[in-house]
């Protein structure tokens, strides 16, 4: 998986918190979409829809072999080509081979997190193929050499001034801060690319096995362009992004567009599953669907985490998460950020490698409430923490912090031995004295404990313990419980 930034979770989080622009954007986003989605779910006439969709997602997973085989069969019947890629590398190799065979010089991409997950751009670029992102936000990110920070709003961390300067620099237009003017400049530049590209590379929001069609949502129309004008279309699809029937498709789609942007439908929903017919003047001559596992079957196999595959990548959980709302998307260092990213990134790319993610979330439960398919992300975050605390063979996870584990073992020893415990508390009272500041709190500790007080104050050990206070005040005159006469006692 592409995790390019060297900065750690902590550093990126601090940078996010320090960025006034990001804080403003995130707050606006959460106020509008987070609150909006909660209101939308509450007001929905069909209150069972979310459970129904979740149930159908889980049922599909239980029969995923059958559903995927049916999808492949029906895409092939339309003249499309289907490739099953077990690994990211496999998906990259296949796509590259298609591009080379068709002598592709320019690829236009529609916003696809899967393409980031398998990290296909460098492979194409190495072959001298130009890769152009076409979603406006992604395009801006690409021009800036930056990384997206939200599933739906990739450049939310940039302001109009930064984008204006970027466009002056890269597109050679006169400086402006006016979003419509900037959008029109990008429209013109990208139209040229979209109309002349040889290959369109997209993700897949939902494939329908029964019809053999994939469907893609967009508001801008870039994905329609990328699947209509180039000679070749390759769609990269995570293997869980499938529904069995059109009836399921309809409900899942409606939850997706509502969760993502409170829309009854996105502006465009394109359906395709094969090359254009002979008398069709546009539409691809070749259509390839790449179905990708890349670690998903391991998630499927674990009953504890299978549920996360039901995610429809709407991004709603980002719009309500208090942690994402402060630190922004870059800290997650993954194509998938926010609460969903904190669960799925470690599962796809290594729990130890991304240990900070599940520990950073607060387990407040907001993401579960807002999730259109009611994914229990907090439960899965806790499960990930459990794996980190104790290690897990199934997930090749080693105990994350053996020192911490040892500390807790010592702690257990202490608290179960009152004499030892009280002695140490007494000792602590003396040791802490030089650290207590004017405010009566400990503002700075030394050595390995320094981290604790880096961002907060610690109350000192009290002069007398609760236990002592209790003894002084109440021991001896312990109030006796009033006796209640019961019939049996009579």
């Amino acid at each position: 998986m592409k995790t390019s930034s060297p900065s750690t979770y902590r550093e990126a989080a601090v940078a996010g918190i320090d960025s006034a622009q990001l804080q403003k954007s995130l707050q606006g986003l959460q106020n509008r979409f987070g609150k909006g989605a909660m209101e939308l779910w509450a007001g929905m006439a069909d209150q069972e829809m979310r459970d129904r969709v979740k149930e159908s997602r889980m049922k599909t997973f239980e029969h995923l072999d059958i559903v995927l085989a049916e999808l492949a069969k029906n895409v092939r019947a339309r003249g499309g080509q289907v490739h099953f890629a077990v690994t990211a590398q496999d998906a990259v190799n296949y796509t590259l081979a298609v591009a080379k065979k068709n002598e592709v010089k320019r690829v236009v991409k529609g916003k696809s997190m899967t393409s980031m997950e398998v990290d296909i751009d460098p492979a194409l670029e190495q072959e001298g193929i130009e890769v152009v992102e076409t979603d406006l936000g992604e395009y801006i990110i690409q021009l800036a050499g930056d990384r997206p920070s939200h599933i739906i709003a990739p450049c939310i961390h940039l302001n109009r001034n930064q984008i204006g300067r970027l466009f002056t620099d890269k597109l050679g237009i006169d400086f402006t801060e006016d979003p419509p003017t900037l959008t029109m400049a990008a429209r013109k530049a990208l139209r040229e690319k979209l109309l002349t590209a040889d290959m369109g590379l997209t993700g897949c929001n939902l494939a329908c096995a029964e019809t053999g069609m994939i469907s893609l949502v967009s508001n801008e129309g870039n994905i329609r362009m990328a699947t209509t004008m180039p000679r070749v279309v390759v769609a990269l699809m995570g293997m869980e992004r499938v529904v069995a029937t059109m009836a399921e498709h309809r409900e899942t789609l409606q939850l997706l567009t509502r969760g993502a942007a409170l829309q009854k439908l996105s502006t465009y929903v394109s359906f395709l599953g094969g090359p254009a017919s002979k008398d069709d003047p546009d539409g691809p001559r070749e259509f390839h669907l790449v179905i990708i596992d890349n670690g998903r079957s391991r998630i499927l196999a674990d009953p504890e985490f299978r549920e996360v595959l039901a995610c429809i990548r709407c991004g709603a959980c980002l719009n309500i998460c208090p942690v994402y709302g402060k630190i922004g998307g870059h800290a997650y260092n993954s194509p998938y950020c926010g609460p969903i990213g904190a669960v799925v990134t470690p599962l796809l790319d290594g729990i130890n490698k991304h240990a900070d993610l599940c520990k950073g979330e607060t387990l407040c439960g907001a993401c579960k409430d807002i999730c259109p398919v009611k994914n229990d992300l907090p439960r899965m975050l806790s499960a990930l923490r459990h794996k980190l605390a104790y290690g897990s063979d199934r997930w090749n996870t080693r105990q994350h912090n053996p020192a911490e584990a040892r500390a807790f073992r010592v702690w257990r020893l202490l608290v179960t031995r009152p004499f030892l415990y009280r002695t140490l508390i007494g000792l602590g009272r003396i040791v802490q004295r030089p650290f207590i500041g004017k405010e009566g709190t400990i503002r700075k500790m030394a050595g390995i404990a320094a981290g604790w007080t880096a961002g907060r104050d610690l109350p000192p050990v009290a002069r007398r313990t609760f236990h002592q206070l209790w003894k002084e005040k109440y021991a001896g005159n312990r109030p006796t419980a009033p006796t209640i006469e019961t019939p049996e006692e009579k």
Partner: protein
Amino acid sequence: MMENEYFFLRNIHKALGLAPDNDRSKEQYPELFAAPDTRKILHRVRNRTAEERNELVELLRTNAQALGIHLHPAESEADAAAIVVEIIRSREPEFSHTKHVILHDHPDVAALQLWKRFTREAVTVHTTFSSDHELREKTIASFIGITAPAIGVAESATVIQLTRPGQPRSTSLVPSIHIALLRRDKLVADLEEAYTLLREEGRLDSMVFISGPSKTADIEAQMVHGAHGPREVHLIILPSSAGPPMAATGD
């Protein structure tokens, strides 16, 4: 079966706790692909009274407005033609200096007789006949594309454009302005009804649901129309196809 497909599906079998070389098939799980019973819905859609249809148009109007779609009820083909001519006259091309208009090869569009309506100004009208090999070029040159979608959905102000011979996908996409002609009887209430009708269509090459003009809010969350697709969408409601036109109501 290709080798990687075999391994891929075997991994799924393993993950599901099945024997690796399991060959279970969809026939064993009929409920997985069970078709919904849509007779009731079909009956409802096909037997709407004029009044119910008017209500749908009103619902469409409200929802279209919210999305920035220009809705024009037309009482006749001539009426529709006048609306289209006015749009063509009053708008300027975005990417060129000449006015080209491209039309789907569809009877409702042909009925506008646009070819003979511009005698004084320079407007070139093209039709997407499937035998024409210059369609791509003509489409890119056009600033307005006119189509007649198969279905309209009132609940979400959506039109559903099916790709058919003579009705390619780029006509409603590449030009700056999209004009869609929709007959009253093609308007349904919601997506459930629309999906039911789509099922009746049989296998389709490709299709697109269009709900309003292209838009983006990627720069500081400010909504801008016209990102990559048409920046302006007009929806003209024509009288029902069968029988005499519906009595005009509050339109």
